[in-house]
Structures are given as structure tokens and as C-alpha cells.
């Protein structure tokens, strides 16, 4: 008899409930048919403030966040708290940028960021690079959602890969059926569960552990006792630059990920986005408090589950819940984390599928694809993407998927000059952008390759903190590799642009006009152009 029976029953019941909702979602805000990317992949582009809030929030704060960020605080201390400044910085940055993307996308019917790049710079090549970058960066992100579910299952004593495969098969089926409507509807349940669990956790657990003060003191005592120089409940002189560049770099990367853009493009008008950028930080507060579960675990003396001789730090939060809550509530908490993995995984696979369909299939394989063809291909690709993510988990070490995710953040940043800066300026030449992408990508890989961690015996790809002394500087300071690689990208793109302009290389036509970047719902331009754009 499994000692976690109550937890398993509650977990399964809630899981089946949301799966049912996923299938029903096809009839929610019913469209005439789902056979177009606007309907299947963007939910009819008609989501209002509430749906967008849940959708984008459900999309950015994933199961992996709930599991990995506290695990990072548990292991390394203050450095893991970078997630808080990161989620503060991101909203004002995107506040202005993404409404421009929304407008120009609605005028021209863009579904993906690569669609925009193609029209803006008249460059199918740069669009292809943006699409490939997006797909490659998204895959390990989906795989990490599985890591989150796995941590929960492990804590319930459920081992083996079969349960995860089943969970993902169900997810794949209802995403196929309902498209973006499914995660949008499920996000309501997911976030409600998570808010309940976290509110209970931050009130009940500190009360049992002697208050917040003693939790922080216990964490400090643990870090004082370890030989590692970088840990502690405060930053030290050498990792402050890493902390701020990681926060800034992650913020810039976040909304370049195709799935975040999908959530934004699905909203009804510009004000919905603006209002959300001021309301979404409610999740940041939640994230900060969730992060501190890592310290609570230290104070409570929680130990991670050890499998095959290796401790799995990702089980820290599930283990803490198991120790602190009655079984039935632990079941709800586990369901919150598990369902929390499904929403982003669904949105990510839809976004990756849209990229493939619009910017590879339609561009290179079947230029005269109809709306129904596009929707059909996207549905199939979204299945393949999920199969790929499951294979990552089955055949790769999960530690390796975390490394892939790290690389994902660095590479998605390389689309910033074309996508984010492209929304403001067309100064860059398409040749310069391509050269910058190649240089930034190469630099990023070289930097990550040279980051080792002797403590765990890894010589390469062991983190994102690049020591500046490797560049010949006399310092112990580290910096986020993604920001350095982006700097290389921008420099090469600028130099390439100057060279291309001097050599008078052909620069394609810009299909957008300045006023397209301000168009809003009900605007005559949107209606006029909708009739003329294919």
C-alpha cells in the first residue's frame, strides 16, 4: 500500500478535471470553425484582460519556476532571488515594445515574431533564423515542465516514465483539439490552486518554524557552514554583476520567447496588454514568496530525494509540502504544480508549431497553403514537439535538459536586434542582422562552453556565470553569458550594417509603415488591410 495514496487520489482527480476542461475548451467562445491559425493558434485574437492575465501569467510562471527557483535558493542562497528583479524589470520594458508588435501584427496578420521580421526587413533568411532559434529554445523549456511533474511524482513515490508519458498524451490530445483555448481555460484553475497553496504555505509554514527571522537565520547558518564562496543570504562583491545582468538578460529574453508573444498577440486590443503589464507583477510577488520556500526547507531540515545515488534538488519543495501539510492538502499542492506544467507546455508547443508552419512550411515547402492547411500542419507539429520533449526526458539526463534551457536563454536573446529593435528602427541592414546573429550565437556557445564548475566535476556548460578573468581581466567578478553574447551580436550587426550601406548592397522593402505600429482595435486601418492582406 502506497503511503501517499490520499495525495495520489487528489492529484489524479484534479488532473482529470482539468483535462476534461481542456477538451471542452474547443467550444468556449465558440468560433465558426477552428481551421485557421488565428483561431487555433491565437484563440481568435479576442482575449480580454482577465483571460490574458491568466494566460500570460500561466505561461511565464511555470511548474519549473515553482520547483527550480526555491531549489536554487536552497542550494545557493541570494543568487537564486534574481528571479524577483527579473520579473520586475520585464514588464515596463515590454510595456512599450509589445504593444507595437501587437499593432503591426494585427494590421498585417502576423502570427509569429518571424512573420514580422520577414516583412520588416524583407528577409526570409533572417525570418528563418528567428523561427529556428525560437523552436530550438522552446523545446528544452517544454522538457523542463516535465522535470517539474517528475519531481512531484517522485515525491508521491511514483517512479518510472509511464505516468509522464500518459499525462503528456492527454495534454497533446486536448491541445490538438482546442488549440490555445485549452491552456487559456485551464490557466484559471491552475492559478487559483497555486494562489491558495502559496498563501497557506507562507502563513502556516513560518508559523511552525518560529517566524521569518529564524528562517533566514537558519539559512545563513547553513551557508556559513559550507565551503562554497558564492553562497549566503546576501550577495558578495563578485556575484552582484552576475545578479543584475542575469535579471536584465532574462527579462529581455522572456518576451522574445515565441510562447510569450503568442499570449500577447491573442489579446483583444492594446489596452488589454497595457493593463496586464501593470497587473502581472502580482505574480512576481507570488514568485518571490515561492522562492523563499527554499529557505523554509532549510529551516525545516528537508532533504532532497536521492535516486541512483544523486540527490534531486528539484524535489525540495514537494518534500517540504509533504512534511508540513496534511496529506489531502499536499495532494492539492502537487496538483497545482503538475497542472502548472501543462499550461505553459501547451502554449509553448503551440507557439513552436506556429513558427514551423508559418516560417518554414508555408515559406519553403508549400507557399500556397490555405488557412485550413496551416491549422492542420500546426496541430500535427504541436504533437511532434511534445513527443520531442518527452524523448528529451526519457533519453537525456535531466541535468542535461537544464543545461539546454540555459543555452536556450542565451540563444533566444540573439533575436533581440531583429525583433525588439526592429519594432523601433529599420536602421539595421538585413545582412548586418544575419552576421550579428551568427556572431552572437557563436560567442554565446563559446562562453557557455568555457564555464566550468569544478565542484560538480563539470568542465563545460556548467552554468551561465562567465568569469571575467577568462577574458584577461584581473577580477573574480562573473557576468551573465547571454548579455555578453548579445553585446557581440549588436556590435557585429552595427558594423555589418555600416559596411552593407557603404557597399550599397540591396536592402529589401519594408512592408510596414510607421502608423502601423499604433493601430488599435476598431481602427479603420485594421479593417481595410484585413481585406487586402492574404
Amino acid at each position: 500500500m502506497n503511503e501517499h495514496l490520499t495525495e495520489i487520489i487528489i492529484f489524479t482527480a484534479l488532473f482529470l478535471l482539468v483535462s476534461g476542461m481542456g477538451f471542452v475548451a474547443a467550444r468556449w467562445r465558440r468560433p465558426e470553425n477552428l481551421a485557421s491559425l488565428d483561431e487555433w493558434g491565437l484563440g481568435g485574437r479576442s482575449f480580454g484582460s482577465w483571460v490574458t492575465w491568466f494566460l500570460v501569467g500561466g505561461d511565464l510562471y511555470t511548474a519549473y519556476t515553482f520547483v527550480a527557483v526555491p531549489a536554487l535558493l536552497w542550494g545557493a542562497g541570494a543568487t537564486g532571488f534574481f528571479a524577483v528583479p527579473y520579473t520586475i524589470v520585464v514588464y515596463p520594458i515590454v510595456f512599450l515594445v509589445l504593444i507595437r508588435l501587437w499593432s503591426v501584427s494585427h494590421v498585417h496578420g502576423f502570427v509569429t515574431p518571424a512573420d514580422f521580421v520577414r516583412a520588416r526587413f524583407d528577409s526570409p533568411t533572417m525570418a528563418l533564423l528567428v523561427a529556428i532559434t525560437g523552436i530550438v529554445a522552446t523545446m528544452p523549456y517544454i522538457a523542463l515542465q516535465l522535470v517539474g511533474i517528475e519531481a512531484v511524482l517522485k515525491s508521491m513515490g511514483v517512479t518510472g516514465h509511464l505516468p509522464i508519458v500518459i499525462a503528456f498524451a492527454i495534454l497533446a490530445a486536448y491541445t490538438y483539439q482546442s488549440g490555445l483555448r485549452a491552456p487559456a481555460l485551464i490557466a484559471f484553475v491552475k492559478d487559483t490552486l497555486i494562489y491558495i497553496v502559496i498563501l497557506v504555505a507562507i502563513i502556516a509554514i513560518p508559523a511552525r518554524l518560529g517566524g521569518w527571522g529564524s528562517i533566514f537565520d537558519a539559512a545563513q547558518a547553513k551557508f556559513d557552514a559550507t565551503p562554497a564562496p558564492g553562497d549566503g543570504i546576501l550577495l558578495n562583491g563578485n556575484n552582484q554583476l552576475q545578479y543584475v545582468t542575469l535579471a536584465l538578460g532574462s527579462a529581455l529574453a522572456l518576451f522574445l520567447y515565441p510562447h510569450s508573444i503568442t499570449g500577447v498577440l491573442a489579446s483583444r486590443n492594446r489596452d488589454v496588454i497595457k493593463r496586464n503589464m501593470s497587473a502581472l507583477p502580482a505574480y512576481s510577488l507570488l514568485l518571490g514568496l515561492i522562492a523563499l520556500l527554499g529557505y523554509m526547507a532549510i529551516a525545516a531540515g528537508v532533504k532532497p530525494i536521492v535516486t541512483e545515488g544523486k540527490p534531486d534538488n528539484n524535489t525540495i519543495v514537494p518534500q517540504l509540502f509533504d512534511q508540513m501539510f496534511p496529506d489531502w492538502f499536499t495532494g492539492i499542492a502537487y496538483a497545482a504544480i503538475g497542472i502548472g506544467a501543462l499550461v505553459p507546455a501547451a502554449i509553448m508547443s503551440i507557439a513552436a508549431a506556429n513558427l514551423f508552419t508559418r516560417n518554414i512550411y508555408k515559406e519553403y515547402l508549400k507557399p500556397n497553403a490555405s488557412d485550413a492547411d496551416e491549422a492542420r500542419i500546426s496541430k500535427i507539429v504541436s504533437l511532434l514537439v511534445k513527443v520531442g520533449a518527452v524523448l528529451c526526458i526519457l533519453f537525456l539526463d535531466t541535468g542535461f535538459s537544464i543545461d539546454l534551457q540555459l543555452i536556450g536563454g542565451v540563444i533566444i536573446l540573439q533575436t533581440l536586434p531583429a525583433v525588439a529593435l526592429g519594432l523601433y528602427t529599420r536602421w539595421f541592414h538585413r545582412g548586418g542582422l544575419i552576421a550579428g546573429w551568427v556572431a552572437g550565437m557563436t560567442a554565446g556557445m563559446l562562453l557557455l562552453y568555457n564555464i566550468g564548475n569544478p565542484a560538480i566535476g563539470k568542465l563545460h556548460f556548467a552554468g551561465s556565470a562567465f568569469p571575467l578573468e577568462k577574458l584577461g581581466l584581473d577580477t573574480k567578478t562573473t557576468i551573465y553569458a547571454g548579455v555578453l553574447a548579445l553585446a557581440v551580436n549588436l556590435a557585429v550587426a552595427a558594423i555589418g550594417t555600416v559596411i552593407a550601406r557603404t557597399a550599397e548592397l540591396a536592402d529589401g522593402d519594408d512592408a510596414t509603415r510607421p502608423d502601423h505600429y499604433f493601430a488599435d482595435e476598431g481602427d479603420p486601418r485594421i479593417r481595410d488591410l484585413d481585406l487586402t492582406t492574404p
Partner: protein
Amino acid sequence: MTTPNGDRSDHSPWNWLLIVPIILPLIPFLYNSDEPRLLGFPLFYWLQLAFIAIGVACTTIVYQMTKRRR
């Protein structure tokens, strides 16, 4: 519902307010300290959580001042 054609833009002096929540969290010496504690939270933690409120305030003000009249 209909808006006039071509005479609108994103420019507004209020947008400058968004600089505040972008810059504040990126200055670690402001908050990298244990004392003073608040409800047991070291400064490092409560001040960064307080920055969230500042971010909400700034984006809300800019939203209210720049939203379109319908």
C-alpha cells in the same frame, strides 16, 4: 469606437516613468544588506519585494495616462 487615421503615436512624457522600475532593481548596493529587517525579512528581500509595488504603481500610472479614450 473609430479612431482618427494616422495622427496617433506612442509618444508620451509619462513613458519616462517606466525607467524607474527598470533601473531600481538593477542597483544591488541599494538592497544588498541584512539590516534593517522588517518582520524578520532582511533588507535584501523586503526591499526587492517592495520594488514590485513601485513597478505596479509606475506601470499603472502610465497606463491610465496613456490609455485611449473610446
